């Protein structure tokens, strides 16, 4: 049969010097990863990991299409973790204060204050021009999660930091309660806006689960905050910490599972490479921490071990999600294939198979 003419799109053109597949160099590299992905998938329980079909795609010499984030590791994952732990501790501290639990209140306030100050340090350290940090507050833009986040982080860290300081110094008891409540109000948004921060990018594996990421980070924050406060609070008063930690861990595990499996090819980076290792470790820590909390949380040693495991699980989750996004940004496959699928779905919906211009 006579092939379509030279002028028909695709008409047999291959990159010269490459293999006989359009993506050439990239595809070889992609295949290796895929094999790894399958192995990782089998390790997951019950074969629930969808097998991702060999993706056929084209790229410009295997170069990534989008620029990978310039955010530094460990600065940003640590910021995400500390902000989350501080945020959930602040909520717990405010409620514990209002219901008369002095030991839990004190621990929660110190965790929230310390976490918030440290998270601000990491955030500023990550800037290309740290001395210009205050430029964050010269405009307010609802379209920029980092702008909104700055207006959450600034009052939160001020309130939580001041509350922790007066807690240590023992001054102004009534101001302490006010500060604690203010921090508690900003704590939830601080812990969940970071999900929006990552999702509101062109990074495929962050953008696709944009509805889930705030819940991942919210659940993870509660596991971390509950875990940390559990370690330092007398077990008799740490009941709320244990409950919050276990619920948070359950939410984290459930939503992470959804992120890892519900988004086709862009779920793949969550299973493979460094991100896959980190997230498997995260799940092991979180699940073990939650289980041990239920079994041994009422003993001192049990509380310490399970609290540390929960915090470690949360920390590893942040690193894992961060690394998965970086991996998805660096491989053009994750940019091109989902966009092609989207176009094909749109064309099918419009009832005509478009092959030329999109």
């Amino acid at each position, binding site marked *: 049969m006579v092939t379509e003419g030279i002028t028909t799109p695709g*008409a047999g053109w291959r990159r010269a010097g490459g293999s006989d597949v359009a993506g050439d160099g990239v595809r070889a590299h992609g295949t290796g990863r895929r094999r790894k992905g399958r192995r990782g998938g089998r390790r997951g329980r019950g074969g629930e990991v969808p097998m991702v079909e060999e993706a056929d795609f084209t790229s410009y010499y295997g170069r990534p299409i989008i620029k990978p984030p310039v955010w530094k590791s460990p600065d940003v994952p640590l910021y995400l973790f500390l902000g989350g732990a501080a945020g959930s501790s602040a909520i717990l501290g405010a409620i514990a204060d209002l219901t008369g639990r002095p030991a839990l209140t004190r621990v929660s306030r110190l965790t929230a204050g310390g976490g918030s100050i440290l998270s601000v340090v990491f955030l500023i350290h990550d800037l290309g021009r740290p001395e210009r940090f205050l430029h964050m507050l010269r405009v307010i833009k609802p379209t920029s999660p980092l702008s909104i986040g700055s207006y959450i982080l600034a009052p939160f860290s001020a309130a939580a930091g001041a509350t922790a300081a007066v807690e240590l110094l023992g001054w102004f008891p009534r101001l302490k309660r006010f500060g604690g409540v203010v921090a508690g109000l900003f704590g939830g948004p601080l812990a969940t806006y970071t999900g929006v921060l990552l999702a509101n990018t062109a990074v495929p594996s962050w*953008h696709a689960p944009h509805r889930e990421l705030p819940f991942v980070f919210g659940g993870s924050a509660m596991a971390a905050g509950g875990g940390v406060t559990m370690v330092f609070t007398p077990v008799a008063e740490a009941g709320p910490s244990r409950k919050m930690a276990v619920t948070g861990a359950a939410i984290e595990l459930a939503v992470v599972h959804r992120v890892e499996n519900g988004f086709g090819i862009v779920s793949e980076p969550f299973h493979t490479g460094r991100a896959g290792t980190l997230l498997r470790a995260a799940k092991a820590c979180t699940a073990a921490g939650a289980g041990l909390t239920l079994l041994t949380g009422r003993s001192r040693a049990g509380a310490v071990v399970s609290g540390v495991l929960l915090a470690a699980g949360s920390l590893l989750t942040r690193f894992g999600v961060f690394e998965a996004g970086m991996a998805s940004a660096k491989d053009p496959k994750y940019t*091109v294939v989902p966009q092609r699928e989207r176009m094909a779905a749109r064309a099918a919906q419009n009832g005509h198979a478009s092959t030329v211009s999109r």
Partner: protein
Amino acid sequence: MTTVSSASPAFTGNDPQNRLFGPLPDVQGEAGYATDHPARVGFFTDTSVCIGCKACEVACKEWNTLPMDDSYGNRDTLGLSGMSYDNTGQLGANTWRHVAFIEQVRTVDLPMPTMGPPATRQDGITDAPDEAEPGDSVVTAQTSVLNAEALSEFDPQTSQSGDREIRWLMSSDVCKHCTHAGCLDVCPTGALFRTEFGTVVVQGDICNGCGYCVPSCPYGVINQRKDDGRVFKCTMCYDRLTDGLQPACASACPTQSIQFGDLDELQARADARLETLKRQGVESARLYGRDEDDGVGGNGAFFLLLDEPEVYGLPPDPIVTTRDLPAMWRSAAAAAAMMVGVALSAVLGSRRS
């Protein structure tokens, strides 16, 4: 306070529709400029006449005094990329025009193109190919062959050697100056702003190097200069525009592959050019970034391409990430409420010691 908002058209309250994505007839107006602002300007890059001379790259580097870098954006290093004649590699903080080179081969299992009768050949050039009788394989074959020959005749990018056809695709890539620019939407400092010409520019004295714009660009244009900390990208020569000059790259382009002008005029010109190419039988020609209904509301700098966008390193279906931001904020609010709920029930459900 200036009346010009550095926020995106979204949330300025001037336009209830299309604030986050979709067509915007008056980009500058939505950004807060008074009605007497200049017309929106742009680039139309017609890759079918690009000869890959890189005059645009050089002119851009010289005018904007951009530092030298290799194909991975490493500053002050020389390096060969191994990617055809492209040692520039990609757009980045130090590279605001990038000429992509794609060498392609194709095995021709067609009759020798020179065998076609001259009379038919004339028809083949002037007639639209779909006028050929459907199902008539001979006519189709001839049309294809003649198209191939026609293309190689007017297109220096394609040539034939034995049973193989070789072509070079060359395309000068640049910042797209999107109608809904992800970088502009997410910039927390207001360093990125919409100019009176409808372009998107970074203010170097405001940028604090947070880097949020970098992964938010669906085209991978803007990047951070590591030793400087701030981000940089094409300004469409904002300084030249304010003095009534055209951008350096467009001035330097010897084949008018890079055309600068008012955006609506360029769009009309591009539509006409596409029409011409299609009539000549170049079925693979397509406009990229021209469609104002695409995921970024159309580009201020758009292209005529001869192959799929991803062949040139362009995303086939880019969307501005902030299109989904309302859903994300709702999700974050729900998750925050969930945290308060869980904490409340955890405290209230525990016996006080």
